[in-house]
């Protein structure tokens, strides 16, 4: 059986495409980086899209704003409406929010720090796994180490909206301790109502192998440092849902 084809979108300013492609490949997906200068229409032949981290278009205006107006993201939005999978990681999550794939949810500057924060955080699966294609193969309540590395990662919206997100199980991931970026409901990852789009602020792909985590998670020491880590589960779920 052929592997699912995944496009990893690269904009000027993207900086995480390599590890994102590798994380997808290690989960059995045929992932490729697609540059902004390539014809947007070519994207339609892919089954899923990952928008990786970085500072697309220098985060001009605000994070994700310019990339969200690009022709390639137009294609991604249309394909998402047809049910294809879209995973936005960090800057990619900002693009996903900016383009309206999550509804009226915004991602704003971290509070109270007001600046870029890089730390290893515990992220918990906080809605039923089946609510989202990127969590479908996980055990309920799974806690994963991820790397938070952003200055604008605070999910925000009206209280009523967040209450609805809670009811609908759309807050897929939550910071296990209080959100260091001040996100409402400690949200770290939010999915759309169909569960085929996930905007995730912390990076699973930067700690996707055991060697990335030996310093933070002593049990990883007993495992092959080259093998995918528990944080890689998101990509395995994605691959399973695509199969």
């Amino acid at each position, binding site marked *: 059986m052929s592997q699912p084809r995944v496009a990893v979108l*690269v904009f*000027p*300013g*993207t*900086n*995480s495409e*390599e*590890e994102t492609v*590798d*994380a997808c490949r290690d989960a059995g997906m045929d992932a490729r980086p697609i*540059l*902004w*200068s390539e014809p947007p229409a070519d994207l339609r032949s892919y089954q899923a899209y990952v928008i990786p*981290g*970085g*500072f697309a278009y*220098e985060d001009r205006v605000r994070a994700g704003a310019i990339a969200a107006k690009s022709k390639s993201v137009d294609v991604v939005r249309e394909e998402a409406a047809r049910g294809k999978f879209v995973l936005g990681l960090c800057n990619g999550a900002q693009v996903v929010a900016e383009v309206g794939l999550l509804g009226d949810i915004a991602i704003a500057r971290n509070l109270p*720090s007001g*600046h*870029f*924060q*890089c*730390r*290893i955080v515990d992220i918990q699966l906080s809605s039923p796994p089946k609510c989202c294609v990127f969590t479908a193969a996980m055990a309920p309540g799974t806690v994963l180490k991820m*790397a938070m*590395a952003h200055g604008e990662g605070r999910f925000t919206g009206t209280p009523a909206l967040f209450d609805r997100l809670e009811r609908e199980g759309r807050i897929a991931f939550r910071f296990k301790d209080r959100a260091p970026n001040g996100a409402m409901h400690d949200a770290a990852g939010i999915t759309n109502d169909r569960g085929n789009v996930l905007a995730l602020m912390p*990076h699973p*792909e*930067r*700690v*996707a*192998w*055991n*060697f*990335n985590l*030996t*310093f*933070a998670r*002593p049990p990883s*020491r007993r*495992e*092959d*440092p*080259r093998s995918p880590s528990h944080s890689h589960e998101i990509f395995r779920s994605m691959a399973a849902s695509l199969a």
Partner: protein
Amino acid sequence: MIAGGMDLVAHAAAPLPLEGSDDDLKRLATSEALALTPSELRAIVQRLGRNPTRAEAHAFAIQWSEHCSYKSSRALLSALPTTSDDVLVGVGEDAGILRAGIIDGVEYGIVVAHESHNHPSQVVPFEGAATGVGGILRDVLCMGAKVVASADPLRFGPPVTGSHAAYVAAGSVDGIAAYGNAVGVPNLAGDVYFHPSFRDNCLVNVVALGIVQRDRIIHSRVPPGGEGYDLVLVGKATDASGFGGAAFASLALDAAQAQANKSAVQVPDPFLKNVIMRASYAVFDLIAQRRLEVGFKDLGAGGIMGSSSEISSAGGFGAVIDVDAVPVAVEGLSPFVISMAETQERMLWAVPPSFTPDLLAIYNERFTLPEVSSRASAAVIGKVTRDARYVVRAGGRAVIDLPIDVLTKPVRATWQLAPSPKPPRPIGAVELNDPKQMLLRVLSHPDVCSRRPLIEHYDTVVRGATAIPSGYADAGVFVVKRGATLAVAISVDGNPRYGAVSAKLAAAHAVVEAARNVAAVGAMPIGLTDCLNYGNPEDPVAYRELADGVEGLAEAARALTIISASGLPFVTGNVSLYNHSATGSAIAPSAIVGCIGRIDDVGRVVTMQLLEQDNILYVLGARRPELGGSVLADVLQLTAAGPLPPIDYAETNATIKLIIEEIRAGRVTAAHDISDGGLLACVAEMCLGGEGKGRIGATLQSPKVWAPDLAPSAALFGEAGGFVVAVSQPSAPDFERSAAQFGAHALRLGTAGSASLQVEGLFEAGLDECARAWMQPLQELFA
């Protein structure tokens, strides 16, 4: 005023009569903004046999600046060891390369570059520090490498709230973060010290590392057979920014000048750099595919002139540059400004003309440089020539036309050497009235407390190759390639409190500590880099400090015979002089050293954090009575300053070999180097861990047991080098046997466990109190 294009050309091409008395020449130098002395001006005429054109005079001013020529330090630097079996490319190119190892039959090298951006960072901290990062990344990139890590040694004035020093510190860190984070290069090591001598002259050093396949290394020179090669300028459109930057870096700062000098600071553009890096990686692939011989060089000091003359002359060629072909950001720039401005984010390729169309297409079309930044592009600006002349043409005529060697041949400056300084007054016996209170004061000292508030600004995990980010261990670690276990460790060191006591011993300590730091994660030290930050070499005392510093580096590097009998090689380095304030006080002598280590199995690395209850703690390396340069002496504000702890190289080598072997064997579960704050601060940090959340304490035996001849002050807070390691109970006999075999000084210190840090017979401190003292001090500064 000059108006009109032709007038600019005529102005640049006009001969400058370098005649008359010293005073005449000084006046001329001032009015023409040439950073050259009267004797240097006369030397130009002597070398050329004629008066130079105005553009030529500026070219000499840049090439003969301290920054480019190393004229004050070159002779001294020859004392440093620079070769070993692990050196693939040594000193002399944009960056050095060390052997990493072989993965799946392919040999990889670790590219190392080290720079300073001290003066610009003092004037405009954010831009100055950011450009420092940008410049060093290009040095690594130009070797054909993927840029994979950076490290930032920083030195600031005391961080008093609201002070200029605090502004410089916060701005520099923001600048480093803004640049490094955007390009996606993780910051994996660094240190920061606060010392009054840096109040008017901060130090912002940057180390960058790259990974390159050995058979794909690109050199900073036109290759053999390169006659007729195209010279292709890549990057940002040239503007007037940074004109005279190299000369600026070689001047002392005074407050009035600082404002005027702002125009000599370049403007960073990490966004464009990000794209240039990725485009260059695509070019590297194509070059390897087609097996082309090319040259690639960063544009730094002296801009197009500096880079094009050096890349050509290093290959034994000449060059002709056409200024009118250079993409410019604004019209009306003088040809000599275009050829010598230090606009950031530019690099120069020397490629066969048959490859030029593909090269231009990658940058301009596939990676759309002109859309990414206004007027950015790749453009052919000149040719490599067989005759060894360096020619810059503008408006149809030559504004520079010189034998290339005259321009690139090194010059030398000789300065007076003051006699060796008298040793400082020795510190007498120090009583510890309240050892617990002293521990808390030491932990909250700005040079000891947690760096997390600063590190948090840096992306330490981008690329997904990080094994140990900054702040968790004595060195940062990353894998050479995902899917393989081969890894690299990096640490930087250099203690200014030591420098203030002894320039020579401080430099030696910097080497030894950097090596210990990479060993503390389990890595074998394989190479060094240095940045020599000193005062004005024309001052005999400052020149003596520089000379002593180099001697200290050389002595220590040769003595560290851990991997090779010839010691550890320096593969790259940088010299930054004229670091002093307008009032003339030089900075504390600061030899800042980086050490690169190699680890075969990344799965074995350890951090400083205690992980297992009941582990046995050992101290490696004898404790000593000297308290000179210690944090304790600073906390107590002792007026006597000396002496520093001496270095026992045999002991250092033995303990480093032991710790590497024991980490590899899995017997050591945590390790930490003893440095600022001494043994007690070291153990406290092992309890707290990188995030200050550690919950495993330690109980140490009375110092009478493990340092019977010493006063408790020296035993607990003395900074003689060494390690504290944690060993699991069942492994203890093997560990002790191994220590005896290596001839390493290893004594049982106590055990891990309990929820506090205690020293039997002296005190007990809660981990919460320790964490508060250690975590908070820098939070406000870097908020």
